[in-house]
């Protein structure tokens, strides 16, 4: 059996912080090596390719998107990330043209890391709150 890489809690935190930068700078250079090929988010029921599309779509809708990490909690092979996102609605978002409105969204993400890569996630965020801010729902 090949030896697997087990990351320390500090290395897991560094991997997560680096990975979340993709939302801020749209740089997908290390996307493929950071996510396992069979990666899946169970909450949104999306795979690796769909995650990439979601990030691209989000950055087109909110070009000034900025995600910050508020807290990191590690136990075993899992890391929980509490995050806040800010952005201005300047592009098409799920078919809704730019409103110019500012949005703030918060959420919690749990990533499981295996052999140095993200293999699965669970997530929850205040999407309804975000839609309200954009005036997409009342």
């Amino acid at each position, binding site marked *: 059996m090949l030896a697997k890489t087990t990351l320390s809690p500090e290395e897991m935190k560094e991997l997560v912080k680096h990975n979340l930068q993709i939302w801020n700078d749209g740089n997908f250079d290390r996307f493929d090596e950071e996510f396992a090929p069979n990666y899946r988010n169970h909450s949104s029921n999306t795979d690796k390719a769909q995650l990439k599309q979601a990030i691209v779509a989000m950055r087109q809708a909110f070009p000034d998107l900025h995600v910050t990490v508020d*807290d990191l*909690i590690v136990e075993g092979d899992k890391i*929980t990330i509490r995050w806040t996102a800010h952005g201005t609605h300047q592009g098409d978002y799920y078919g809704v043209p730019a409103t110019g409105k500012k949005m703030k969204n918060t959420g919690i993400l*749990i990533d499981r890391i295996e052999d140095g890569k993200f293999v699965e996630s*669970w997530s929850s965020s205040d999407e309804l709150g975000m839609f309200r801010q954009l005036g997409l729902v009342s």
Partner: protein
Amino acid sequence: LSLLDANVHWVEPEGVPLEGIYIGPDAVLKEVLIPLTSTWDGFTVTPETFLDAGDTITVLGTLKGTNKATGKKLGTPYIAVWTLRDGKVVKYQSFVNTIAFAHATSGQQMMTPEKMKTLVNRFVQVWNDGNLEMLEELFAPDYKHADGRTKTALKQNIEATRQAFPDLHVTVDDQMVDGDKVVTRWTARGTGKKIVNTGIGIDRIVNGKILESWGSSEEPGMFRQ
């Protein structure tokens, strides 16, 4: 751990965060050794003197570490008595300066990760049985959710949810503990076991009570209908 007898009695002294008797190597690992590393930074045990009396070995040494919750340093002598039988440890009992522990953990009633999870699970149970009185025991008086809800608002939230979904059942899918925080991933089901919501919550525990929580809009009370 292979040196421990399957029925080892591991005794942590009264007055320290992990006080109690732990039986078996698994309990020693999960309820003593792992919690020590998750609640203290750089926890080290340095044996200095060994007093060998046949099947009983007494060790004098020093404990060191920095409490994660308070940031205070511990540096205190300890005595540990190891009882051996057939080359295995059948009993371990340590004696420490409990005042030193109390000082390093002051302002913070320490709990093991298992006890922290149990505390949060008792809160989850309130969603299922509606026993709102329990909240007084589980939450600090100045509890606040990051979304602004106080303990009173939380009670109203639970009450309203249970009226709308009398057969509400919330199950815990996963839990993790790091320092003073517990992460809980849950699923709420209503009539006919239909999933009505899923979510992730973070609770910070101080002095044995839940002091603050985070979780987007995803308390079980906020349902996607």
